[in-house]
């Protein structure tokens, strides 16, 4: 008998989810409509994630290029040393110190790349059937979360300016909420027009 009360919720969940547009979230996903396998800490049992957004992967190009430069720098310096007649490896003490410093340097470069990736990966905007949730990972020791009910959303708009954003199709999304609730701003998300349409459609339903 208790199943009678469970069934409507499942049907409701089924109605909210558009199975034709389902997509799996992989490590590089930045725009997922009806994502599979994603959930968040405060998600209610009947709540469905409609949209999962983060900045376009192209926005990572600056730190990726910088990391590649940093990785190749010791190799270039090693190649240039003989030109200046500097023999770093003449003394065993210097060799030992150089080994440690080079290893330490590569560890720090890898940590820089990892943290930059985390910064991109954990800056997420989630639109569920009930609310909009902004997860910010601004610093290695700072993270914050903001949320607003869909019924409190007053205005959704986007801007797309510049050659690269127009070419790769990404832009900034602004969500204005009513009253004292925080406004949301997500930068460089892919398909901003589609995202705006989806959020507007959801808020109109509420």
């Amino acid at each position, binding site marked *: 008998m208790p199943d009678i009360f469970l069934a409507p919720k499942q049907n409701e969940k089924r109605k909210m989810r558009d199975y034709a547009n389902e997509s799996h979230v992989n*490590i590089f996903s930045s725009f997922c409509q009806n994502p599979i*396998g994603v959930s968040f800490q405060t998600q209610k049992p009947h709540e469905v994630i409609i949209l999962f957004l983060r900045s376009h992967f192209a926005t990572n190009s600056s730190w990726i290029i910088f990391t590649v430069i940093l990785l190749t720098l010791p190799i270039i310096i090693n190649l240039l040393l003989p030109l200046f007649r500097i023999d770093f490896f003449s003394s065993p003490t210097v060799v030992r110190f150089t*080994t440690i410093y080079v*290893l*330490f340097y590569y560890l720090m470069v890898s940590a820089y790349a990892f943290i930059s990736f985390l910064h991109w990966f*954990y800056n997420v905007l989630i639109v569920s059937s009930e609310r909009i949730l902004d997860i910010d990972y601004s610093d290695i020791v700072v*993270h914050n979360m903001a949320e607003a009910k869909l019924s409190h959303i007053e205005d959704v708009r986007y801007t797309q300016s510049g050659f690269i954003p127009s070419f790769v199709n990404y832009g900034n999304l602004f969500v204005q909420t009513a009253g004292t609730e925080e406004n949301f701003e997500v930068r460089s998300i892919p398909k901003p027009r589609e995202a705006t349409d989806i959020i507007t459609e959801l808020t109109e339903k509420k």
Partner: protein
Amino acid sequence: MDFNFFNSIFSANLLIKIITLIAILFYAIFTFVVFTQVKVMTQILHLPHINGILKIISLMNIILAISLFVFAIVIL
């Protein structure tokens, strides 16, 4: 022989060694902070397969930092 010269070289070496070890130790602590933060973020946002990979990478970072610290103590 100028023993003061050898003493100064020895103390300079020791000073650089200590500074290097402190820097690596700070880095090891920092990697632990990164691991803790990744753990917190994986609790906030559940992405089953990806979260596991990130946890492993951050754990490897700690292991490598500690290994470097031990290696530095041994060879410097």
